């Protein structure tokens, strides 16, 4: 990832790329206008004399209306260009692709992203969280839903923002020009952990995407070692109140689907890299890591934590 993963003065996908020249144009016009006005004010004000105003006689000089006329006429040029360009660019990107290659349903929750991949049959469908995989070079339609409060879906290198609003389905779309990992972020204030409601879009070649998809469709493997078995039991007892692992009886969708948690790059809504250490730390004390998050502290013993992590590491 680049050093400025959310910067939008560069783009890696068609939807963002269509808009980018317009952003640069309006930015450059704006800077130019500020410079011109700044110079005008400065040059005019530098003539100011340090005397009492009452000592200088009042006098109406010059044709000021011409200033206004010329100023407004000059202002019209960039305004007209921007207006036409805006409508054109809007028409190009506002509509979702007619024949998307992939349709995703993304649901904003406090404070994580549910991602549902659709298929022709129920067996072709699966859910994941905070990590969206897409094939490179295809148009992906994203249907946006709101589970609780309003969030906003934003992947600056690929697409501008669209809100996820309870009670309505908004549409966005993505197309990545090249493989890469693109950071996304919730941008509508949604509560205490709004700051850390991130996600990632991973664009990969078609073959790699299909491999990932096949893997995601698998249900969880059964635990093998005693530690994993104890961890699985603990999971059923404690974690399944909120989380689902396909292939087990854990089927709650209150929190993220964890069937393939171990395959994800990041945990805690793209806050921490995914490794046994961070995972253990997160399960042990989520309120320390993300104060206010809806996952309660678990108060597990050291042994229980080790077992649970051992089990979660099998969910690849």
């Amino acid at each position, binding site marked *: 990832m680049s*050093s400025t993963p959310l910067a939008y003065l560069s783009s890696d996908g068609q939807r963002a790329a269509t808009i980018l020249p317009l952003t640069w144009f309006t930015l450059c016009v704006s800077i130019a206008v500020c410079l011109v006005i700044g110079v005008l004010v400065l040059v005019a004000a530098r003539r*100011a004399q*340090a005397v009492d105003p009452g000592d200088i006689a*009042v006098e109406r000089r010059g044709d000021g209306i011409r200033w206004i006329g010329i*100023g407004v006429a000059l202002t019209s040029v960039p305004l007209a260009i921007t207006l036409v360009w805006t409508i054109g660019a809007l028409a190009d990107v506002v509509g979702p692709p007619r024949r998307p290659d992939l349709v995703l349903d993304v649901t904003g929750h406090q404070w994580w992203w549910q991602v549902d991949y659709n298929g022709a049959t129920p067996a072709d469908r699966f859910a994941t969280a905070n990590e969206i995989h897409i094939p490179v070079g295809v148009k992906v339609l994203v249907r946006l839903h709101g589970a609780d409060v309003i969030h906003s879906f934003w992947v600056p290198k690929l697409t501008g*923002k669209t809100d996820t*609003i309870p009670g309505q389905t908004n549409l966005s779309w993505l197309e990545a020009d090249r493989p890469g990992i693109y950071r996304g972020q919730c*941008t509508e204030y949604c509560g205490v952990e709004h700051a850390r409601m991130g996600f990632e879009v991973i664009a990969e070649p078609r073959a790699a995407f299909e491999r990932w998809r096949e893997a995601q469709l698998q249900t969880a493997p059964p635990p093998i070692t005693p530690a994993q078995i104890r961890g699985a039991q603990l999971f059923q007892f404690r974690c399944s109140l909120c989380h689902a692992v396909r292939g087990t009886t854990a089927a709650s969708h209150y929190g993220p689907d964890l069937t393939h948690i171990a395959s994800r790059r990041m945990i805690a809504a793209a806050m921490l890299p995914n490794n046994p250490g961070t995972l253990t730390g997160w399960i042990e004390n989520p309120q320390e890591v993300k104060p206010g998050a809806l996952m309660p502290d678990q108060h597990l013993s050291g042994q229980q934590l080790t077992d649970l992590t051992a089990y979660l590491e099998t969910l690849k």
Partner: protein
Amino acid sequence: MREAVFRTPEIGDDTDVLRARLHAIWETEPGIRGWFGTVDHKEIGIRYIITAFIVLALGGIEALVIRLQLAGPNLHLLTPEQYDEFFSTHGMTMIFLYASPILSGFSNYLWPLLLGGRDMAFPRMNAFSYWVYLGAVIFLYSGFLIGAGPNDGWFNYVPYAEKAYNPGFNEDFYSLGMIFLGISTTVGAANFIVTAFKTRAPGMSINRIPIMVWGTLTASVANLVVVPAVSLAFFLLWMDRQFGTDFFQTRGGGQPLLWQHLFWIFGHPWVYAIVLPAMGMVSDGLPVFCRRPLVGYALVALATVSVMILGFGVWVHHMFATGLPGLSLSFFSGASIVITYPSAVTVFAWIATIWLGKPVLKTPFLFFSSMILLFVIGGVSGFMTASVPVDWQLTDTYFVVAHIHYVLIGINVFPVVGASYFWFPKMTGRMMDERLGRWNFWTMFLGFNLGFLPMHLTGLLGMPRRVYTYPAHMGWSALNMITTIGSFVFAIGVLLFFINVWKSWRSGAPAGDNPWGGSSLEWSTTSPPPPYNFAVIPTVASRHPLWEDQLQESEARTSLRRGMVLDDGKETLHTSPVDAVPERIVKGPEDNTAPFQLTVAMMVLFYGMLLKNWWVIGVGAIGCLVSLLLWLWPRREMLERAPGDRPEPAHV
């Protein structure tokens, strides 16, 4: 049986005998009763200004705490919940409790002086709007102080503000407090409108009023139209929270987006309402320091009005990312781009005024002229967000935070501080310190730009707004540190301003009646003005009553020392709305504590509603009723009578 009679006002000279007589009539009675009962617009205006500046300091301290939290990545000065209350309270404070009331304060103080009248049209309502404003400040801040300040941002989106997600008292304080504050705004707006149209001195036709009056008049009309929308929205939210209605919740068929429409149909005009009067201050103040009349008076007045008319049709540009259809987005995008035109008219009028004038370097001039650049910076960033596809990237990042601060600090705080230097001599009879003023200006100007210009880049690099912290690897850390440093420098500048006010009030050099050589009527009376403002009502002959001899643009001269004396009780003159032809003499009310009592009763009522305690609500409601009765009880002295009760034939 009408007891009203007609009377021709006597025309007289400005004499010491008359002044003594008027002083006795108009002076607020000393003591506690007078303090709570005064209806003098100057006293009320100064209270408004002082309260709003205290509120500005509170909001500023909140901002500094926020900036400390954001100075570096992953800092933990505040918990997320505390941070949310701080940024929400900061927005509420600056936008609702400072930016508008400060302008109301200046307008309250200045209008009768600018217009050649003796008081506002409804003096008791004027006092009432101040007391309710103060009550709303106390109400809203009492929530913050017990840890239940607003925590959903100043625009308070649902469903997060609903009880299911936000169970504390926070949003109840905010909802009820905003309804309470809306009463003050509404009362004040009605008063300004009637004052502007009915209480101008004879001869001050509508094309002769100062631009600041145009600004506040336009803002007041807008407030009357749009404040009901937001009061309704907050009322519906309170109903949702307390009585389980579902106006904004999908479970009962409600719509979260309804909130955004109701809020922004108010919110956008409100932004203009808190800048147009300040722009008017610049339009009136700048020419005094350029030694010439404002270029394009009529165009600037029309631009003021047309900004607001267009401003009613742009609210959806706050909602470009909500999934509305492309066609409606283009309409609002177009309207938002077109609104640049009237702003351009005003900007070029100001610049031409400096170019074609003989500028004088004084502290108010520095604030007024630099404001032009800040206005343009805030304007062009607004123009960028008006382009829908561009806004999909810009919105809800720090670019917008930079934009709103250039608008509110650039177009409100800078003109207000400049206006304080400009009118302080009139209000106190003393000049503000010029040397400290220069320090004040440069610290504010450099600190502000150091803090907020780089913030545009922070936004372009993708930093979302309203985050309590941010990761280290995003490229924002250095920029945030610069912004924090800049905001502290800016805060020092504001502190220097307060110090200057304090120092100058106690020991500033005496100011004459007209220390700046100003053109409008307020400079014709003493500094500070007497309780009755003008010994005789001026008869106005031009747009620049005090510059007539120098401009030599016509033979007519404004009469300042001879005019209607109106000394039979607290009398003011009402004139016709357009041409300011005298119509009738109106009796003003004496000091009255009923507005204060009504406000106290309303506070009881609102705290009762907050607690949902019907007993407290009942006490408050009865208190309101009693206070209203006291206020409205007919008084014989309010009747218009000729001296000696003689009916006079002539209708003035």
